[in-house]
C-alpha cells in the first residue's frame, strides 16, 4: 500500500515527536515540515530528506497538492489562521492546539467514519485524551452526573503554550468530559509538579454515578484501558475504580514512548499517539481497504 503524505506545522517538541512516530508508521509519510524560523525541528526534517519551509503555512500551501493530512501543533491563535486555509485546500487537518475549530476527537471514544469525513478534528488536551475515555466508559454503564479530573504533569513537560493558556486547557478538557465523555457536569484541575526526576503524568478521575455497581464499572474501565493501550502503550491503570457513596475514584498514569519527548512526557505522547492513530485510520480508509475504523 502506498503511504499517504502528511505535513506538520510547528516543528517544536510536539512536531518532532510526531516526526518520529510518522517515520515508523506503515501508512504515513512525512512530506513537509512547516515552521516560521530555522529550528532543530526544521533541521531534523531536512536531514531526513523532508521538504521544509520557514515561511509558515503560506510557504507551504502552493506546494501542498500531494499532502492529504496536516498536523497543526502551533498555537490556538495560529490555528485560527491555518485552519480555514487548510480547509480551502481540502486537507484533512488534525488540530493539536486548543483552537478547537473542529469537533473533539478521542480515538478510544469517538473515532468514527463520520469523523474522518470532516475537514478538521481537534485533539482536545492531553488530560482530555487521558481521562475522557474513562469517564465515557463509566458513563456508559453507570450514568455520570459529575466528573472531576485532577491532572498532575511534570513542569518540564508543560511547554510555553500550555503555560500561557492554562485556562484553555482546563476549559477545553471540561468540555470534553461532558461532550465526549457524557458527564452532565464537569470540573478539571491541573497541577504542575517540578520534582526531579520528573513525575509521570498522573490523572485522578472522580465520577459521581447514578448506578453504583462497582463490578460493572471496573469491567468497563478495564476494557477501555485496553483500547487506549492499543495506541498509547504507556497508559496504565494505577488504581482500579473504588467507590465511596456515589463517588468513583480511578487513577491512571501515562508514560511516553520516548520517541523524541522523554518518557515522563506521557501527557504529550498521548496526544501525538492519538493524532497519529487518527491519521493512520484516515489513511487506511482512504486506501479503501474496506475496513471500517
Amino acid at each position, binding site marked *: 500500500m502506498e503511504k499517504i503524505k502528511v505535513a506538520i506545522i510547528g516543528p517544536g517538541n510536539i512536531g518532532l515527536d510526531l516526526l518520529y512516530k510518522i517515520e515508523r508508521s506503515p501508512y504515513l509519510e512525512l512530506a513537509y515540515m512547516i515552521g516560521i524560523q530555522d529550528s532543530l525541528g526544521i533541521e531534523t526534517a531536512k536531514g531526513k530528506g523532508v521538504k521544509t519551509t520557514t515561511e509558515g503555512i503560506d510557504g507551504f500551501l502552493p506546494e501542498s497538492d500531494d499532502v492529504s493530512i496536516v498536523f497543526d501543533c502551533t498555537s490556538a491563535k495560529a490555528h485560527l489562521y491555518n485552519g480555514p486555509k487548510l480547509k480551502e485546500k481540502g486537507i484533512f487537518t488534525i488540530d493539536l492546539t486548543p483552537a478547537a475549530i473542529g469537533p473533539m476527537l478521542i480515538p478510544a471514544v469517538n473515532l468514527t467514519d463520520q469523523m474522518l469525513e470532516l475537514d478538521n478534528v481537534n485533539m482536545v488536551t492531553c488530560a482530555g485524551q487521558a481521562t475522557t475515555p474513562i469517564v465515557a466508559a463509566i458513563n456508559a454503564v453507570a450514568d455520570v452526573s459529575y466528573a472531576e479530573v485532577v491532572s498532575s504533569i511534570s513542569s518540564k513537560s508543560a511547554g510555553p503554550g500550555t503555560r500561557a493558556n492554562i485556562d484553555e486547557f482546563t476549559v477545553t478538557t471540561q468540555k470534553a468530559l461532558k461532550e465526549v465523555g457524557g458527564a452532565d457536569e464537569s470540573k478539571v484541575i491541573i497541577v504542575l509538579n517540578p520534582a526531579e526526576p520528573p513525575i509521570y503524568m498522573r490523572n*485522578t478521575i*472522580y465520577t459521581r454515578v447514578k448506578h453504583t455497581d462497582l463490578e460493572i464499572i471496573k469491567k468497563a474501565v478495564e476494557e477501555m484501558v485496553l483500547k487506549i493501550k492499543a495506541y498509547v502503550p504507556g497508559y496504565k491503570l494505577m488504581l482500579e475504580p473504588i467507590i465511596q457513596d456515589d463517588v468513583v475514584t480511578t487513577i491512571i498514569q501515562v508514560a511516553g514512548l520516548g520517541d523524541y519527548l522523554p518518557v515522563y512526557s506521557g501527557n504529550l505522547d498521548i496526544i501525538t499517539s492519538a493524532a497519529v492513530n487518527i491519521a493512520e485510520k484516515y489513511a487506511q480508509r482512504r486506501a479503501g481497504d474496506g475496513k471500517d475504523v
Partner: protein
Amino acid sequence: MAKMSKIILTDTTLRDGNHTVSHQFSPDDVAKVALGLQGAGIDLIEIGHGDGLTGSSINYGFSKYDDFSTIKAAAEVLTTSKLTVLLLPGIGTVKALEQAHKYGAKAVRVATHVTEADVSAQHIKAAKEMGLFTVGFLMMSHMTDVDRLVEEALKMESYGADVVYVTDSAGAMVPSQVAEKVAALKNNLKVPIGHHAHNNLGCAIANNLAAIDAGATYVDSSLMGLGAGAGNTSTETLIAVLNKMKHDHRGDLYKAMDVSKDILVPILESKGLHLSTNHDSMMLGYAGVYSSFLLHSRRASERFDVDVRDILLELGKRKVVGGQEDWIIDIAHGLSTR
C-alpha cells in the same frame, strides 16, 4: 534610623480560614466578619474557598455556598477595605475572576507553585486590565533556592503584579530563611514584597517580623490564626506586635480582638468548632505584665465588670513587678469607678 515603611495588612480569615471550617462560611458570616475587619483597619480582606475561586470540588471539598454569593455579601459591606479573592491558575480561570470582579472584588492574589510563575501571566494581565489590585503569590516558597525565587518573582512583576509574596504554604521556613528570601526579592524587584506565614513550626509571627525587617511591607494574618494546618499568624497578635515595634499600620488592636471574640467565635461555635482566643495571654505580653497575673486579672475583670485588657494595660503602665498581684484589685476597682 530611617522612617519605617507602612505595613499593609491582609486578613485571610475568610479564605485560608475557610479551610478550618471545611469551606462552610456563609454569605452572612462573611458579611459580618468582613465588616468587623474593615472596622479594625484591615487593608485587604480575602474571602472565598480555601483553594481560591471555583476551588469547590471533590478534591478539595465542596463549598457550602457559591463563591459569588459570598463575594456579593462582602461587597455590600466593604467600602474602605479591598475585597480580595484568591485565584490559582489551573483551578480557577480568568472567567471566574471576571465574575468575581463583577460581584465586587477589588483585588486578587494570583497564586502559583513557586517555580511555575509563568502560568500566571494570563491571569495577572487580565486582572490588571480589569483594574484589580493584583498580588503575585509564590506558594511553597521553601521548595526552591533564592536565585530561582527571584527569577519567578521577576516574571510576576513583569506581568504587572503590584506586589509579590513569599508564601510559606507549608509553614516550613524559619526566620533566617524568610529574611534571606524576602531580602533577595527586595533587592531585585521594584514592587513591594509580602509574606504569608503558616504557624506549623510555631514560627509564623517570627517569620512575619523577619520578613518586615528584610523589607516586606505586606503581611498576612487571620483572626485567631485561623487557616490551613496550624493556621496563619493571628491578626490580633500581629497588630499587637506591630504596635510594640512602632510600625506604621492601620490595624486597631481592640477592634480586631472584638471581631474575633464577638463575631468569629460565635460563628465557629455554630459550626461545632470550639476554639478559644489567646487574647488575655497576648495582652500580658503586649502590656509587659508578669504571666501569673492572668487568672487574677480575669477574676478581677468579672468582679468589677471591667475589660481585662484595660486592667493588664494599666498594670503595664504602672510597671508592676512579680509579686504585686494585689495591685490588680486596686486597678480594677479604679477602672470601674471611672
